[in-house]
């Protein structure tokens, strides 16, 4: 059984249908990439999965349970973490306070402390700056903080929305190295990216979104060599 199964969802903003009849699935331990141009519906899809938006039709099954009508804050406790577009770290709080908020739904102090240690191992830069105010971090560091914060809820799956946005090529590489590390450590990841090349190079499988529908799906490495994809998304 797939860990996350999205079945025929449709999402509207008022009169506008942003996504039409999208279905996809993610198995435990996979990295799945959702790629597509601006406005294709990638972020809307992600928001619907994590409960910030409610689909007008369709289901979102997480570990076999339909979560499409459950409030977003409860879905977090079920083991889903969402790293939002633009990082959205709490600018006025310290790095440590941000990370602690990531563990907001948990009460097991000892395990939270261990989890914090693991996050610091993945992101040594956050450990160095734990008392710094998050708003003063660089873009790359804020992305690391947003990812570390998501890990603090000890999730079964992490949704990542444009982790490379606004970062220098060097930092993009660093962030994707960390994504691969997280994957190796067993985390399941749903990755939304405009940087199709990077996304496809770390993902197992990928879905291509075009104006609210899935245009193509398949093995990520094969897609890297697909002529249509190359032309439309890889700039080759």
């Amino acid at each position: 059984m797939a860990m996350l199964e999205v079945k025929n969802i449709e999402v509207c903003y008022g009169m506008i249908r942003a996504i039409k009849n999208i279905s996809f699935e993610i198995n435990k331990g996979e990295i799945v990439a959702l790629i597509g141009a601006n406005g294709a519906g990638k972020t809307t899809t992600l928001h619907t999965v994590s409960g910030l938006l409610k689909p007008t039709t369709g289901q979102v099954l997480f570990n076999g349970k339909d979560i499409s009508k459950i409030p977003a804050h409860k879905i977090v406790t079920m083991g889903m973490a969402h790293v939002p577009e633009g990082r959205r770290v709490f600018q006025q709080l310290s790095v440590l306070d941000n990370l602690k908020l990531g563990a907001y739904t948990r009460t097991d102090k000892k395990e939270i402390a261990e989890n914090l240690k693991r996050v610091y191992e993945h992101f040594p830069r956050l450990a160095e700056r734990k008392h710094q105010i998050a708003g003063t971090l660089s873009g790359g560091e804020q992305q690391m903080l947003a990812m570390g914060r998501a890990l603090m809820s000890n999730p079964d799956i992490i949704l990542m929305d444009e982790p490379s946005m606004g970062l220098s090529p060097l930092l993009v590489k660093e962030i994707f190295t960390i994504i691969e590390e997280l994957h190796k450590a067993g985390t399941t990841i749903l990755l939304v990216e405009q940087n199709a090349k990077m996304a496809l190079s770390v993902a197992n499988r990928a879905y291509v979104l075009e104006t609210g529908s899935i245009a193509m799906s398949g093995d990520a490495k094969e897609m890297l060599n697909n002529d249509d994809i190359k032309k439309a998304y890889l700039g080759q």
Partner: protein
Amino acid sequence: MITLIDGLSLGSIYALIALGYTMVYGIAKMLNFAHGDIIMVGAYAIMVTLAATVSPIAAIIAAIVICTILGILVEKLAYKPLRGASPLAVLITAIGVSYFLQGLAQLVFGSQPKPVGSAWKLPAIKAINDIGITTSAAVTLICGIIIMVALTLFIKYTKTGSAMLAVSEDRGAAILMGVNVNKIISITFAIGSALAAFAGMFYLFQIPNTEPTLGAMPGITAFTAAVIGGIGSIPGAMVGGVLLGVIEKFCLASPLAPYTVAIKFSLLIVILLVKPTGLLGKVVREKV
């Protein structure tokens, strides 16, 4: 010196009320103009309980409990259904709630001021009374400081406190942390209203009469204080409140006394001209 103590004491009343305005604004993104009337309800709660039990302690507890419940109820019944509505609709509703509470008090207790009762009296403390500081000023100042320190520690060191800061900065991101925003808003109204009950209590120490419009002037002054300090900022509300209290008392003690109210509110205009975000307010950066 004595004017300063009086001012600080009055200022801590304003600060307690301003905290309610600023916290609700920060977290629910609305101006709760019925906040001042919660003070009035607290004052009547003290009067009624005092008449029934003759125990000031019971009266204080009753005021805090009643105001807290009232704050939560007002939010649930009047504001929650408007979540996501235009700010203007919420603002008008808040003004409506304010008139409703005043009207209700008038209906139940009449429009005339009523003495709170002879049991409501602080003991004389000779040492400070002799140098001209009233017991009520001293008690208000000390309790005010204790309450504000406690609130600051609560926000800084508890999980609920950091969730409040998180919701106030970025509601969407807070939801993604698993924060139940509705619950945090309820808690905020509860805390704000409890602070208003304290303010009502201190107010009655200074002026031992209740009337339906009792909350209006301290309410609007404290709102001004919250804006001067930077609405949404907790230390800002404290600074703004204390500042206005001190200015008010010094004006009253000077030949400018008839212009006190004008001076208080002109300060708002001056500060907003010089620093539109208020003294400790933060510039909200546009998110791209």
